[in-house]
């Protein structure tokens, strides 16, 4: 159990070390000469960071630098495409795609001799005259890190480092200086809205949970860490890189609404996050940041972990609660809302990880500071998981109101291979596809909804001209059908029928009437489903129908897939003028649909091959194996 004074002493003691972790830091009071930060997030871990960490320790020991260099395993830096990532401070040298074999050289040349190994650095950070700050790279320049501020900056398994970054100061401020009402007012005034999907004002949620059942004997604070959108991983990154921020924020929420118990519902598929949370909870209990009489006050609060078991619907708040109660994760009708009857029928609030990650900062820096960022109705920043056809895949945090163009072109580095931007998908299976005409719309909750998508948890998948929008819609519907809980009729049967209609379209068997029927069914499912999953499931279809109707019509009327994705509408053909008659295509055809024809083009020695389109299963094996590129699809 640590007192406030002890916590502050820890913070002050660590200050020089953490200060060293800035590019060009001149901090002189740190114990170490250098800090080497190596990413221990899921992305870098699977691309080999544990082996690098091991090699680092070995080489540093060998070189006798153990006292001079501190190796810190952090959470995600965000630039997952370049992993494994390693940053050396104070120089700020940013090593990307590091392998264990590179380590001896880096230790020798950089750590001993003082010359960063330029060819192993991320090319954008290499300037003529030395190393550019990471913050000057296009990826980081426009970012503004609030929720992610500690990710990649501290060792998430060490509570002291969190404390060194003002950790638990906000909780201390709340329980020792503020009334619960003041805490709620601060959150309310900040304009923070839920980062998990709907964008409900967080302060309002807390206020309801505080006021609606004044005599409740028990209340709960829950954290939704069941991030399930395919392509979104910001919550995982926060849990892996800065787990204490979630614990602190939940304790603050508990203080604000009058709850003494919290639950974090985290995906079982996030083993690193779970492990770090376990460590964090243990440390926080040891320090008295969780438990009885926090900071000597009469406020007590503890947190338990609950693991999800592979059901996307459990991201829905009532389903999450039924799941924690030990049931099938089926949503319940609202009202009553969780603020009135939530977990075990008690008043409950549920916020997601990213929402919580903003709270301590808001308490410490004030509502006005937070509200100064963003747009009129969407304050603060938003983390996006950039993915798909984009150069810099990874996590980015930008102020609300940044345009799609800025995120994709400037931060994301644009679309690779000179392809054209076609659409951006936000909001996962609940969201929609944004077309190029909305490239310059400032991204916030309300704008996204008005252009037929939604913020969702922040997945942002970029698509280029090679993506078929009908196929994308079908992909999301397949996901929804798999993940529907099966409780209500519209979602259980309706999404299945939507999927079947889309399948029919991609097979060229649909009529224009079917398109209208599909659209009608979409609106029906939206208006009639029990929970958010069903209510938003048609969004990928509706938004593509709206923005890319011509592409649907091409499938239906012309029986063509313009992007060349939908197999059944593809036709493979061999250009006899280019075919050299080698027969490799025929050899590789799994169904013997290719044979040699009669025609020999001028200048060619052998007759060209032809494809029997009635036998062809459109696997593309012929095209992959054709050396003169004589085979085309369309």
């Amino acid at each position, binding site marked *: 159990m640590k007192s406030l004074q002890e916590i502050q002493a820890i913070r002050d003691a660590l200050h020089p070390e953490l200060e060293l972790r800035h590019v060009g830091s001149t901090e002189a009071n740190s114990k170490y000469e250098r800090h080497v930060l190596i990413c221990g997030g899921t992305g870098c871990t699977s691309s080999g960071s544990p082996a690098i960490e091991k090699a680092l320790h070995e080489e540093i020991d060998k070189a006798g630098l153990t006292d001079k260099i501190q190796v810190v395993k952090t959470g995600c830096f965000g630039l997952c495409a370049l992993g494994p990532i390693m940053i050396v401070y104070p120089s700020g040298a940013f090593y990307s795609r590091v392998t264990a074999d590179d380590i001896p050289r880096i230790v020798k040349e950089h750590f001993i001799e003082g010359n960063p190994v330029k060819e192993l650095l991320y090319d954008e950070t290499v300037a003529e005259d030395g190393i550019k700050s990471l913050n000057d790279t296009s990826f980081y320049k426009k970012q503004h890190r609030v929720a992610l501020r500690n990710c990649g900056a501290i060792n998430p398994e060490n509570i002291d480092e969190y404390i060194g970054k003002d950790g638990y100061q906000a909780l201390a401020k709340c329980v020792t200086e503020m009334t619960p009402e003041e805490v709620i007012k601060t959150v309310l005034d900040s304009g923070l809205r839920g980062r998990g999907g709907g964008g409900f004002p967080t302060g309002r949620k807390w206020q309801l949970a505080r006021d609606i059942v004044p005599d409740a004997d028990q209340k709960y604070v829950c954290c939704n860490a069941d991030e399930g959108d395919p392509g979104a991983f910001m919550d995982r990154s926060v849990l892996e890189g800065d787990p204490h921020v979630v614990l602190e924020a939940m304790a603050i929420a508990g203080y604000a609404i009058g709850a003494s118990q919290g639950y974090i519902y985290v995906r079982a598929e996030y083993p690193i996050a779970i492990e770090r949370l376990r460590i964090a909870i243990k440390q926080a209990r040891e320090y008295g940041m969780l438990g009885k009489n926090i900071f000597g006050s009469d406020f007590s609060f503890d947190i338990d972990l609950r693991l999800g078991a592979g*059901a996307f619907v459990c991201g829905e708040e009532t389903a999450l609660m039924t799941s924690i109660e030990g049931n099938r994760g089926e949503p319940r009708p609202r009202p009553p809302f969780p603020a009135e009857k939530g977990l075990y029928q008690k008043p409950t609030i549920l916020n997601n990880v990213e929402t919580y990650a903003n709270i301590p900062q808001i308490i410490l820096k004030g509502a006005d500071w937070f509200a100064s960022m963003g747009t009129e109705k969407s304050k603060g920043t938003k983390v996006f998981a950039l993915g798909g056809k984009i150069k810099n895949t990874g996590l980015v945090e930008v102020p609300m109101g940044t345009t799609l163009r800025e995120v994709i072109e400037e931060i994301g580095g644009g679309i690779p291979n000179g392809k054209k931007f076609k659409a951006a998908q936000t909001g996962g299976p609940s969201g929609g596809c944004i077309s190029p005409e909305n490239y310059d719309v400032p991204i916030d909750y309300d704008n996204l909804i008005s252009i037929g998508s939604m913020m969702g948890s922040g997945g942002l998948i970029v698509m280029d001209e090679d993506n078929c929008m009908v196929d994308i819609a079908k992909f999301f519907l397949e996901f929804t059908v798999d993940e529907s809980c099966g409780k209500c009729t519209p979602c259980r049967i309706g999404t299945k029928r939507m999927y079947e209609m889309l399948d029919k379209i991609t097979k060229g068997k649909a009529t224009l009437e079917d398109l209208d029927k599909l659209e009608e069914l979409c609106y029906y499912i939206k208006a009639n489903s029990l929970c958010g999953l069903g209510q938003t499931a048609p969004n990928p279809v509706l938004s593509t129908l709206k923005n890319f109707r011509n592409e649907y019509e091409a499938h239906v009327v012309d029986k063509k897939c313009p992007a060349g994705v939908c197999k059944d509408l593809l036709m493979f053909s061999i250009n006899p003028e280019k075919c050299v008659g080698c027969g490799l295509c025929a050899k*590789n055809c799994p169904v013997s649909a290719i044979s040699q024809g009669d025609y020999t083009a001028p200048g060619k020695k052998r007759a060209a091959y032809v494809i029997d389109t009635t036998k062809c*299963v459109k696997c593309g094996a012929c095209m992959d194996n054709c050396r003169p590129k004589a085979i085309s699809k369309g």
Partner: protein
Amino acid sequence: MAKKTTVPFNGTAEQEAKLYEIIDAHKDDPGALMPVLQQAQEVYGYLPIEVQKMISDKMGIPLEKIYGVVTFYAQFSLYPKGKYNISVCLGTACYVKGSGDIYDKLQEVLKISGGECTADGKFSLEACRCIGACGLAPVLTVNEDVYGRLTVDDVADILAKYE
């Protein structure tokens, strides 16, 4: 008819003791079922009727409720995975080249249905979608090994490699 796995239940007394320990540790927790099932699956590798029954008896929760929960979540498994997991591609290219027959043959030879595991725990069998090896169709994988251009007659030889 009860859906029973073809693998006889080989739970040990140790596993049972461990399971009861887990249940005991959660006895004051109203939402204990999920963590108990998750940990039981860690102990046994899967959640066959015998394990669910023990949980049902000990926790006083109807077996059907437990089964309903288990079948709701993708992560829970009613069947053990074999030492060698055979995955037969039933994608279009493989299917038209007869992977369906190969799948049937495997079910026949191994005396299990798709999704199940042989009694000795050696082989489990599943169907998968296109693995992108259409040029080799029909294809199956055994753990990491890929076998292509198969005929029904190859099945015995492939299995023999793992005997």
